[in-house]
Structure formats: C-alpha cells, structure tokens
C-alpha cells in the first residue's frame, strides 16, 4: 500500500420515532496523502487506450483524425513507468501497440512513447462496431497484471451493431472487476445508455465530446486522473444486523451510481461493493439506507457498519446508528447531507424520465419532470446540470420549476444532459462528526 490514508465520516439523524425501521446515512470517505499526480508508486498502473476505428469514424474524417491526434498526444504524455497499450476496435479488435498480435504491454519511456504516438497517428480504419470484442481483448491484455490499477479509456462515435447485443452485456460482465473503463462518445450517433452500461459496471464515467477538437484535452485530462490513482481495488464493505434489509447503497458524489446490484456477499450479514481505484486526494459520498427491526423507545442499535477495504484490510470505518425516541424534536430533525443527496438522486431520476418522455413525444410529462429537475438543480446549486438543462428547456422561473421544453433542442444537447444527469455537487459541510479512525 502507499501512504494513502482513508477516513470515513457519517452524517445522519440517528433518532427514529417509535415503530419506524428505515435508517438513512451519508458516509463520506476521504483519501489523503497518496503521491497523486506523480508516477512514483509501488502500485503498477496500466492505461489502455481503446480507439474506435470503424468506418463511421471517417464520416466526417475530422473524427478519426481528432481521435488519432488525441491518442498520439496521450501516448506522448504517458508518464515514465506506466504500462500502456492501444487497442483498435471495429467489428474486430486488435492490439495496435505494442504491435499487433502481442498481448504484452509497453513500459513508458522515451522510445515507447515515440513508437506508440507514431502508431496512433496512423491507425487504419474500416469495419463495423462490435464493442464486446474490444472489451474482451482489453480484458485479455490486462488480466495477467493482478493487483495493478488497470484503467481503460474507450473512445467511440457509433452505436453498437445489432448482432453484438447479446454478447455486449456478457463482455461487460467478463470485464467487471478486471479493469475500470471510462467511455467517451463522439458526435451524436451513439447511445448514452449503451456506454453507461459499460461505465457503470466498470466503475468509470461516460461523457460526450461534442467537438472533435476537445478530444485531446479530454484524453490528457483522463490520463492525469488515471495517474493520480494510488490505491487499486478498494471495496466498501457493509454489515447490517440480523433481520435487516439493505434498501440501497448508492454512491452519490461525485456522481450517482447505484452500488446495490453490485453487492458481493461476504457473509450472511455483510456485503462488499467495488469502488475501483482511488487517488491520494479524493472524496466520495455514499448514501446507505437500511431497514432494521424496530426497537423500543430508548433502544440503540447499530444499523450498519461501513468499512473501507483495501485488499483484506479494513482501513477505515463509519458507524450508522439507530436510536428510538419519543421526542419528536429529535426524530423529525432532517440531516442536511441525507436531504441533499436524496434531492440529487431525484434530480438524476427526473432528468432520465423527462428525456424519455420527450423522446416518446409526451411533452406534458417531460415538462413536469424537467421542470422539477430545474428546481432541484437550482436549489442544490448544481450549476453544471442546470447549464445543460438549459440546452433542452427554456427556464421561466428556477425556484418554481416553470419551464418550456424546447422542441428544437439538438440531439447533442439532449445527450449532454443525459450524460451529466448523474453528476452531483457535494453539500456544504457544517460540522462533520467523524467516526472511526
């Protein structure tokens, strides 16, 4: 392990009225002290660039040219010591660097950087799009490097071919837990939901790149963040008491990601949830919601023990408690963090529902949903989401959520809103109550 130190804080109102069972808490996990940004670390880092070279990238040619340039720039910027490679994907997948047919990776130095950049600049194009093949090859390449931080950056412009629809989810399942993957869509002929399937399972983020010229900057930005990762394979482990039900475990900042379906049972009362690699300087918030068997007034119960696991070691823990009381002044208190993230989750949901309604031609529903989204985004200070919402709706009044759905909004604006809908803002911290170490 590196010098990264994790700490967990729990935000909740532990007081419950008699007879209730639902316990909510926000657990903030903060990592500090890694050697973020510097490629000196005892953890091996792998960066795999997966570039779409299907024929559609030629239309217009600016797309493939921008992708080539971006990949070349990323190769040239690869920090010393990082293991890297390039996968070219179409309706087949090949390892373009280091050299076709090999499944080893190159260690970044002056020579390999120059070679890879040269390869990237001349990636040949042709063929359809079968993303499952790209994911399978990427997995085969990185699989031998156990314990390393394994990251991939997938760049595509098109929707997956129909004949890949059964293999696509299977390839994602095979890659899950092997490597992490960010995805970027270029242009407007791809489906946000498709790429989100990849990034949700592979713990990455999906973004739209509307302008090919922005590709290089985004690629370098990803590389920056990838190199900052210092701890591989961190898991959130949650214990809940006998007779309880975990309603959900949700990452709520920096993005919303429901971890509930990713639960890996540890024992009868404990599940582990993968959170991927962490840098030495980041903070993520998790909203946990547990139903516990109810207690009498005055009873206290531990509703959840949330531990952060690096390998087999618990590096930090937070305790979520339940105390039953007949004092309504206590039990009706609203915890600011829990309320904030409940709002952010609703924001993401109403955007998805609003966009779907708009797609279905149900403008009334779209107006209600997106109006509520404007209201929630404005209330919580989520300016980024508010900005992209304005690309799809005309806002009359933020506070009341009075809007008109733009009928002529471009597909790109819609996709941008879709990809950004899960981006949250952190609540302003008042007085954190640190738990654990």
């Amino acid at each position: 392990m590196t010098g990264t130190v994790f700490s967990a804080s729990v935000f909740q109102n532990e007081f419950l009225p008699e007879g209730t069972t639902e316990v909510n808490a926000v657990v903030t996990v903060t990592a500090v002290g890694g050697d973020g940004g510097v490629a000196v670390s005892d953890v091996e880092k792998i960066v795999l660039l997966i570039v779409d070279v299907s024929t559609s990238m030629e239309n217009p040619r600016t797309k493939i040219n921008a992708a080539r340039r971006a990949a070349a720039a990323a190769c040239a910027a690869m920090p010393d010591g990082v293991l890297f490679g390039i996968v070219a994907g179409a309706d087949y997948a090949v390892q373009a660097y280091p050299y076709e047919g090999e499944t080893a990776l190159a260690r970044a130095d002056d020579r390999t950087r120059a070679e890879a950049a040269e390869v990237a600049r001349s990636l040949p194009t042709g063929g359809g799009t079968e993303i499952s093949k790209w994911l399978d090859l990427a997995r085969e390449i990185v699989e031998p490097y156990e314990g390393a931080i394994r990251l991939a950056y997938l760049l595509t412009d098109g929707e997956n071919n129909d004949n890949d629809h059964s293999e696509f989810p299977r390839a994602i399942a095979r890659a899950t837990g092997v490597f992490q993957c960010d995805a970027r869509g270029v242009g407007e002929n791809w489906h946000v939901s498709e790429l989100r399937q990849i990034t949700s399972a592979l713990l990455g983020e999906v973004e739209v790149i509307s302008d090919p010229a922005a590709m290089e900057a985004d690629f370098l930005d990803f590389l920056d963040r990838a190199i900052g990762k210092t701890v591989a394979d961190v898991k959130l482990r949650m214990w809940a008491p006998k007779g309880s039900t975990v309603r959900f475990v949700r990452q709520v900042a920096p993005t919303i990601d429901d971890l509930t379906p990713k639960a890996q049972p540890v024992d009868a009362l404990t599940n582990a949830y993968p959170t991927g690699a962490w840098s030495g300087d980041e903070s993520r918030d998790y909203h946990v919601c547990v139903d516990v068997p109810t207690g009498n007034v005055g009873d206290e119960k531990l509703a959840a023990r949330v531990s952060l696991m690096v390998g087999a070691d618990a590096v930090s823990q937070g305790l979520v408690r339940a105390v039953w009381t007949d004092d309504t002044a206590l039990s009706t208190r609203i915890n600011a963090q829990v309320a904030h993230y409940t709002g952010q989750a609703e924001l993401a949901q109403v955007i998805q529902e609003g966009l779907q309604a708009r797609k279905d031609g149900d403008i009334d529903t779209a107006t209600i949903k997106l109006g509520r989204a404007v209201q929630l985004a404005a209330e919580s200070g989520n300016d980024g989401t508010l900005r992209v919402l304005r690309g799809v709706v005309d806002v009359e009044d933020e506070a009341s959520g009075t809007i008109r759905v733009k009928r002529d909004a471009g597909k790109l604006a819609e996709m941008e809103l879709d990809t950004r809908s899960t981006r949250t803002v952190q609540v302003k911290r008042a007085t954190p109550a640190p738990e654990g170490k």
Partner: protein
Amino acid sequence: MTVAGTRCTTCGADSATADYCDSCGAPLGAIATKHAPAAPAAPAVEVCPNCNAARTVDDTFCESCGLDFATGQMPAAPAASPPPAAGAPSGWVAVIEADREFFDTNQVTDATGAKPAYPAGLSAREVPLTGDEVVIGRRSESKGFFPAVDLSEGASDPGVSRRHAVLRRQADGTWALVDEMSTNGTFLNGADEPLDNGVSIAVHDKDCIRVGAFTRITFSSSSSSCSSSSRQAAP
C-alpha cells in the same frame, strides 16, 4: 469468525466486535452504558446550584462562580491565586456600600432580565487602594481574574462587568477614573450620563462612583463615605 468474542446480552450471540453486537447490532460494554436512555430534561433552573446566582437556562457556566452546569464541575483552579495586595498603601480607600436611590433609579437587570434584589442591611466595607492601578470589577476564578475592588464579594452586584472600571494614580499623585467599556456604565457623583468609555476623569476625596445595580464606591482619604445627599439632582 467468532474468536473469544463478547456475549451479547440482548440476543445471546457471541460477537466478534466489541462495540456493537455483530449479529443484532445492540450496543455492548462501554457503548451500552454510554448511550443509556437520556434522563428527561432537567427543569429550567433559575439559580446556580452552587452559589445561588441567577442564571438563564441557556447558560453553560455560572456567570458568578464558574460552575459548569452540564457537568456540575467547578472550573479547574487557575494557576494564579488572588494576587497579594501589591504596591504600597496609597493612603486612599474605596468604601463600598449599597445605594438604594441609585438602585431605584436605574434599569440594570441580571442575566435573566429581571431586576436583581436590593441587598438590604448590607454593611459598608473598605478596600485600601494599593499600587498605581486599582481595577473595579468582579472576579473570575476560572479566568484567574481578581480585581482589587471585587464587587462579587459580599452582596454580589450582577450589574457590574468583569473588568468594569479602573482607578489609576497619576504621576502627580492624583487619581483618575476610567470606564473600561463596561456594560452598564460608570456614574460619577450622581451624573445621569455614564462616563465615556476609556476617558480618564480626575477623582477627588469623597467622590462617589456608582456602578452596577446598586453599588456605590466612595473614593476617600479616610473611612467616611460620601453621603447620598451629596448626589446632585438632575437639572
């Protein structure tokens, strides 16, 4: 996973964790007593249980004796004990009395917003002025602050600020009075307006200094006080 665990008294399971039962979540050991059901809220206390000084229910500490209402602890003894009277006797004294007329005319209230009780039957006491600077105020044991003219002694005057005013000996041997930004002001010789904060005013033999809710201090070269009748009527 249960190795030499703690027996949970709630569900009977052996818990591998010592803070809460790893089966039912009930608190174990120290946690169980720490989080015992809270006693019903104590009735609103209007006086300090230690020194009977008036307080509001929102106070954390007693204004007078420094008792911590939450813990019932007295403040830790300050490093400094009441300083011995420093400096040579000046030959001047402060005569401290309760002044009924002053009490009846001012609007000074205690911490609860109520007019304090007049300390009837209080006899005059005398504090010799020593050194070049004599502080008029109220002591704070917790802060280690002991003014020479301590108006929390005897009948504690709740209207007097901690560091209320200072008598200072000038180079020529005369004395001057300065109000130290007190809350309720310092009144010299029956004036209706208090002294301006921080401005030195010369004091002479038998001058009357009125502070707080009822305190009259006579600046005197002997043990006699200024009489109430010397107070000038307002024009």
